[in-house]
């Protein structure tokens, strides 16, 4: 499999000005994404997991060019997406589409479903006749499980799940190669979540898409992803194939996250040990030195504060000085503090 997208050292930094500060005062820097590397192979799904505020949405927005970023994001044809002029980027916008978190808010309330779904097509293929566009929209609606005769309805007449299907149809109408799903199901009812996820999986197989699937807990990502990347404070903590990551998580943070995932089997559920995370997420404006996770890590040592752990380990990459399963003693310590 070839690499569709290779991201190297991607950084997004926002400079925040304090309200009422003098114009010459230097602004505070918020490093939302702080040096992320990963590759995405053609046709695979990469899950990105992290607590809210870890920079996963910002990462998605950087890839699609909604927020300025530095670093490199090399597309399959060798072009660096982050250093293109807006005009050059236009050609790639067709290849990279996005599905948003809030299904209703991502649809313009004053436009009909047909107009919404057609918008990317109208933008990228202005040469298509209207009848053809309409035909394609209807075909796409059918594909995502909407009745094509609803084409003239407005978003507020649909349920959340249906709105998300509209969002998916809009993303797929231009036949992209990569779809970035930014928490596509977290705003939906649990019963609907599975439907939408299954739809995404089915469409991915049918169309040979690559997906970047962002979520804030590991359980949703599990069924979708080939590989999973765990983010914390804008940095990659662990990146491995889904089976490796769920089977033998190495990073203490991943283990803590995993322990919080509910298990459907009641006996297993009762037996599992939750590793609590102590304290709150540190402010991204003032991240801890060394390993960013050290303030909440049950295994933290002096070296963790001094040295930044590099992401190492090939296919199962971990950014930790002391990777490995948590011991009983460490779990006990984590519980004590929390």
């Amino acid at each position: 499999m070839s690499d569709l997208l290779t991201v190297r050292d991607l950084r997004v930094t926002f400079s925040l000005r304090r309200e009422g500060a003098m114009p010459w005062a230097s602004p505070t820097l918020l490093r939302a994404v702080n040096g992320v590397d990963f590759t995405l192979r053609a046709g695979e799904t990469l899950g990105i997991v992290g607590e809210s505020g870890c920079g996963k949405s910002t990462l998605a927005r950087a890839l699609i060019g909604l927020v300025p970023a530095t670093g490199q994001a090399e597309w399959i044809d060798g072009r660096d997406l982050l250093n293109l002029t807006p005009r050059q980027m236009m050609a790639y916008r067709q290849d990279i589409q996005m599905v948003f978190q809030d299904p209703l808010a991502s649809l313009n309330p004053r436009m009909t479903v047909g107009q919404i779904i057609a918008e990317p097509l109208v933008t990228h293929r202005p040469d298509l006749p209207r009848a053809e566009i309409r035909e394609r929209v209807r075909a796409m609606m059918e594909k995502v499980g909407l009745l094509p005769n609803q084409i003239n309805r407005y978003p507020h007449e649909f349920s959340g799940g249906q709105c998300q299907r509209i969002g998916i149809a809009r993303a797929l109408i231009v036949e992209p190669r990569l779809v970035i799903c930014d928490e596509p199901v977290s705003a939906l009812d649990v019963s609907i979540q599975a439907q939408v996820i299954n739809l995404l999986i089915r469409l991915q197989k049918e169309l040979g898409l690559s997906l970047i699937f962002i979520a804030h807990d590991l359980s949703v990502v599990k069924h979708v992803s080939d590989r999973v990347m765990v983010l914390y404070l804008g940095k990659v903590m662990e990146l491995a194939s889904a089976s490796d990551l769920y089977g033998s998580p190495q990073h203490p943070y991943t283990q803590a996250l995993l322990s919080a995932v509910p298990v459907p089997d009641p006996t297993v559920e009762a037996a599992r040990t939750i590793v609590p995370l102590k304290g709150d997420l540190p402010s991204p404006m003032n991240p801890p030195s060394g390993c960013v996770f050290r303030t909440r890590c049950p295994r933290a040592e002096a070296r963790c504060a001094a040295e930044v752990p590099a992401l190492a380990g090939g296919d199962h990459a971990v950014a930790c000085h002391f990777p490995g399963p948590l011991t009983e003693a460490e779990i006990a310590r984590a519980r004590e503090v929390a």
Partner: protein
Amino acid sequence: MVIDQQKMQSLSARMVEAEVKGRSPWADARRRFFRNRAAMLGLTILVLVTLFALFGGAFAQWSNEELDFSVMGRVAELGAPSLANGHYFGTDNLGRDLYARTVQGTQISLMVGVVGAAIAVIVGTLYGATAGYIGGRTDQIMMRAVDILMSIPYMFVLILLLVMFGRSMSMLFLGIGLISWLDMSRIVRGQTLSLKNREFVEAARATGVSSFRIIIRHIVPNLLGVVAVYATLLVPLMILTESFISFLGLGVQEPLTSWGALISEGAGTMNYGTLWQLAFPLFFFVITLFGFFFVGDGLRDALDPKER
């Protein structure tokens, strides 16, 4: 099997069914508006006043320039409203038919109001939406310009303009148009700022829709509610401004007239027993203002159901 077949048939039947017509947010708002009694009353008044302005002239027995020599000089006794001599609203001090004059004044006042509001809507919306959408330094500069223009006492400037360049309709429109869009652009900019971070705008930006198209297709249609409400409230404001200027004697010039000018004339002769000269123009003036305010209120309720 049978059940399956039925299901399939009903499904396929639904698939080929004619396209369902959607209920747009506008249609919803229209329904709510038509259920609002006060707003409907206001709308009826406005329609009647407009009809009066358009076709009232056809019923006049006298033109608005003719002097009725039979009542001249004895207006207080002979010039009162009467059907017999064709002066439905009586005559003014010079013996001109007040009915024809009121029709003419209504036309001009409404025109001033509507044109002023229209300028405000077009210029203010585009200006505010552009400033808000582009943001950053452009926004700063554009809005500071508005602040500066707003800080000028506009009545003073308007009067100065009319005095310097002579009183004319075009000068009046220019003056009113110059000031009316400032508030509108501020309101629109505020709305745009909140709209521009909504996900549907982000979605459009992500697929590469041009800024111009985003403003026209995504921002402006979602602002239109606020703009419509503000515009209906702006019309009476414009009418008031014009009337005030005319009342001061600086507005429209004879032989043209407006409500303000008529009211001013009527007020001048109030003490000589010719109260109708004040009453008729004032009546139209007041009911029109009420009409616009009721409609504006109704629109606001209809377009923003959450507020109630």
